[in-house]
């Protein structure tokens, strides 16, 4: 976990999941013509940028670790977290129904889980 950045990413991702959940409940699938949909995808892109920064800082932190950290797991979580949102958006946009939007809820919720695991790997191995 990277101080400051990781907790922020956690909460923003939870926020993105809640936003998607609201879209599921009111049955308002994403449409690239609408401003709110584009704002939502912009938010996801912002999270992805944050995750990229987290990965870079994470590898620097790993290289300077003062205790034994399972490098493979730690690096795996850092890089794996980058895959989630692009794949979720791709899979979601292929079907613009509430089920497609539900994919984004799940995708956004995976991010906090991975960040929590990242923290556990760092502290407990």
């Amino acid at each position, binding site marked *: 976990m990277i101080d400051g950045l990781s907790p922020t990413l956690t909460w923003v991702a939870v926020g993105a999941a809640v936003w998607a959940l609201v879209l599921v409940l009111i*049955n308002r699938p994403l449409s690239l013509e609408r401003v709110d949909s584009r704002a939502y995808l912009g938010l996801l892109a912002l999270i992805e940028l944050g995750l990229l920064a987290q990965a870079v800082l994470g590898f620097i932190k790993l290289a300077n670790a003062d205790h034994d950290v*399972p490098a*493979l*797991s730690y690096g*795996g979580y850092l890089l*794996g977290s980058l*895959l*989630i949102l692009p*794949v*979720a958006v791709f*899979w*979601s946009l*292929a*079907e*613009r*129904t*509430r*089920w*497609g939007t*539900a*994919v984004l809820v*799940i*995708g956004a919720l*995976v991010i906090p889980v991975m960040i929590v695991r990242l923290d556990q790997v760092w502290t407990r191995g």
Partner: protein
Amino acid sequence: MAEPRTDNPTRSGPGRLLIAVYAIFALAACARSASQIATHFDRAPLAYLLSAFAAAVYVVATACLAAGTRASRRIAVVSCVVELVGVLAIGTSSLVAPSAFPDATVWSAFGMGYGFIPVALPVLGLLWIRHTAR
């Protein structure tokens, strides 16, 4: 409610969400077993081989559900059944004989470490395949 449907019923509607969850488990199980086998295979060879097997089953199920052809749906049925048998067998034996499982697999304690989703997924998968059968 008339929602627009893509041409492939297996990956439409709830199927799209189901496949997404399957994909996450495929990724998680692959990553976990790869790191277990690469770093400390000697610690619990049986558990780690089962992890790798579970990972392979998740990958097959995800791909076959996503493809949604007649043949791939059959393979998906088989992998869901294998998954269900696996999670029940490993889940039970990990509770009855914990010494055989010094380290956890995805299926230990019926997938408790993963919010019991591993035991729900194959059931949902089979129900979904039956529901979309023509």
